[in-house]
C-alpha cells in the first residue's frame, strides 16, 4: 500500500523533479550543461512584442511547470507519494491537460504569427494523442480496479502491467513524448517555425516554459513506472531504488528515441492515432476487462 509522505516532501518534490530534469537535459545536450543555459536565461532581459497580451504570456509560461509539479503529487516514489488521492489517475490526466492551456496561451499571447502557429499545433497534437492516451491509462486503472495510483502499484506485485498490456504501455510512452511536446513530438516548438510557441519568449519566461517542458517530460516518463512497470516492486533492492532505476530507464529510452526520429507532423499522426492507436487501445481495454471480470 502506498503511504503518504511526511509534510516536507511537498517542498522536496519540486526540487527533486528539477534535479532529475536538469540531469536529463545535461545528458541530452552532452556538450553544454543545462546549468549554464539556466544562468544565461536568468540574467537575460525579457523582450516583448508590440501589442502582446503580457498577462496571458506570463500565465501560460508559469502554468507549464506548475502543471508538471501538480501532476507529480500523485507520483509514488517507492511506496510513498505526496498524496495518494483516491482518483489519482484522473488528477494526473487533468493536470497534464493544463499543459494544453499553457502552450496555447503562450502561443497566442505574444501577438506573433510563428508562436500562434506553435499554439495551434499543440491543440492539434492534443486532439491526436489524448484519446488513445486516456484509453491507455484507463486500461491500467481497469486492471487494478481502482483509480488510486497506490492500488495500481499494488496490483502489479506479481506481474507488471507492461507484460500483459503491451499495447497500452506502448501508447502511453508515445503520449508521454507528445504531452511534453518533446523529441519526435516537438512540432509545437518546432525549429521550422523558428521555435513555434516559444519563439518570442526570452529570459525568465523562456526558462519557465522550456524548463517546465523538461519537468513535464520527467513526470510523464516517471508515471509510466507506477502505471505499467510495477512501481517500487522488485527483488533485493528497496522500493525507492527500483522506482529510480525504472524511471531512469524510461527516460533513457525517450532520449534515445529523439535521436532516431524526425518530428512527427500532426496531420499525419492524427490519422495513425484515430485509425490504428485508438481501436488498438479499445481492444486492449477489452482484453483487460475480460480478464478482470473472469478472476
Amino acid at each position, binding site marked *: 500500500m502506498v503511504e503518504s509522505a511526511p509534510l516536507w516532501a511537498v517542498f522536496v518534490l519540486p526540487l527533486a523533479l528539477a534535479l532529475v530534469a536538469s540531469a536529463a537535459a545535461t545528458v541530452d545536450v552532452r556538450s553544454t550543461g543545462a546549468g549554464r543555459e539556466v544562468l544565461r536565461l536568468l540574467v537575460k532581459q525579457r523582450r516583448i512584442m*508590440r*501589442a502582446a497580451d503580457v498577462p496571458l504570456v506570463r500565465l501560460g509560461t508559469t502554468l507549464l511547470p506548475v502543471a508538471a509539479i501538480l501532476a507529480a503529487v500523485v507520483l509514488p516514489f517507492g511506496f510513498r507519494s505526496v498524496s495518494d488521492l483516491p482518483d489519482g489517475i484522473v488528477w494526473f490526466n487533468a493536470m497534464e491537460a493544463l499543459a494544453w492551456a499553457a502552450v496555447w496561451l503562450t502561443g497566442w499571447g505574444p*501577438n506573433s*504569427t510563428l508562436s500562434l*502557429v506553435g499554439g*495551434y*499545433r499543440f491543440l492539434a497534437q492534443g486532439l491526436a494523442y489524448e484519446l488513445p492516451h486516456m484509453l491507455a491509462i484507463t486500461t491500467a486503472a481497469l486492471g487494478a480496479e481502482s483509480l488510486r495510483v497506490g492500488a495500481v502499484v499494488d496490483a502489479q506485485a506479481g506481474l507488471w502491467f507492461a507484460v500483459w498490456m503491451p499495447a497500452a504501455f506502448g501508447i502511453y510512452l508515445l503520449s508521454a513524448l507528445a504531452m511534453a511536446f518533446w523529441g*519526435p513530438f*516537438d*512540432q509545437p516548438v*518546432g*525549429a*521550422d*517555425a*523558428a521555435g513555434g510557441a516559444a519563439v518570442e519568449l526570452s529570459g525568465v519566461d523562456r526558462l519557465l516554459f522550456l524548463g517546465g517542458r523538461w519537468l513535464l517530460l520527467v513526470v510523464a516518463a516517471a508515471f509510466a513506472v507506477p502505471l505499467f512497470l510495477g512501481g517500487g516492486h522488485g527483488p533485493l533492492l528497496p522500493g525507492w531504488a527500483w522506482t529510480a532505476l525504472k524511471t531512469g530507464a524510461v527516460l533513457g529510452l525517450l532520449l534515445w528515441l*529523439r*535521436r*532516431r*526520429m*524526425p*518530428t*512527427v*507532423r500532426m*496531420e*499525419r499522426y492524427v490519422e495513425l492515432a484515430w485509425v490504428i492507436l485508438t481501436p488498438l487501445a479499445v481492444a486492449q481495454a477489452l482484453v483487460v476487462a475480460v480478464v478482470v471480470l473472469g478472476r
Partner: protein
Amino acid sequence: MGVVAGLPMAERADDRDGLRLDRLHVPLGPALPDWPAGLVLHLELQGDVVQRAEVEAVPAPSPSGPAFWNEPWLRAMAGDPVTVGEAARRRCAAHLDSLGRLLGVAGWREAATRARVARDRALDGAPGAEFQSLIRPLARRVRRSWTLRWLTAGVGEQAGVQPGGDVHGRLIAWLDGLEQALDHVDDRDRLTAHHPVGPRGRLDTQVPPSQALLDALPGLLEGTEFACARLIVASLDPDLDELAVQHVPGAHGHG
C-alpha cells in the same frame, strides 16, 4: 483595413472548408533557420494553411565570384583545368548542404548535424575514404527511416514528375546523386565542359536551374500546411546565387 496598435488587422476571407477565417499576411525569409538564403515568400495564411504564396528573390549584392555550388563546372566552362574529383567533391557537399537543411526542417536534428559535419569535411579536402565513411552510414540511415518516408512521401507532389516527384523522392534523388559522386572524389581526370550538370541541374542553358525551382514553388505551396510548406521549400532548395551570377565574366566563356 483596421489598424490596432499600429499593426494592420487580419482580414477575413473564405477558406478551403467554406468558412470565413482571418487571413494573415506573413513574409517568410530572407533569413530563417534552415532557409535558402535570400528567398522571400509572401504568404497568406489561414490558421497555418497557406492560401497563397508569392516568390520574391532578394537580389544578391554584386557577387565576387561564380555561384559557389556551381563553381567547378563554371570554371571548366571558362576553360580552367578542373578535375572530375574536385567537381564530385563539390556536388557531394552541395547535396549534403541541402540534405542538412531538409533534415533540419523535418526536425531530425541529429541526422542534420551529421550531414553538416560530412559537408564540411568534404569541403575541407578530407581524404575520400574518410568522408565516404561519414556519408555511407548516414545515407543508409536516412534511406531506411520509415518515419521519414511516412512523413515526407506525398508532400509537395509535382504533377508529371513520376515516380517520386514528392519531398521524399527529391530527398532520395539527392542521396543517389551523392553516392554516385562519392565514387569519383579521387578521380584526377580533367572535367569536360560539354553539357555541364551542377548540383541543381544543367548549367549551359539561358535560365539557371534554380529559376525553375522558384517557378514551381507557388503552385506547390498553395493549400499546404505550414510545416509541409517548409518541407517543400527545403526539398527544392533553390540556390539564389545562381540567379545573380549570370553577369559574372568567366561564366560566359562557353558559348
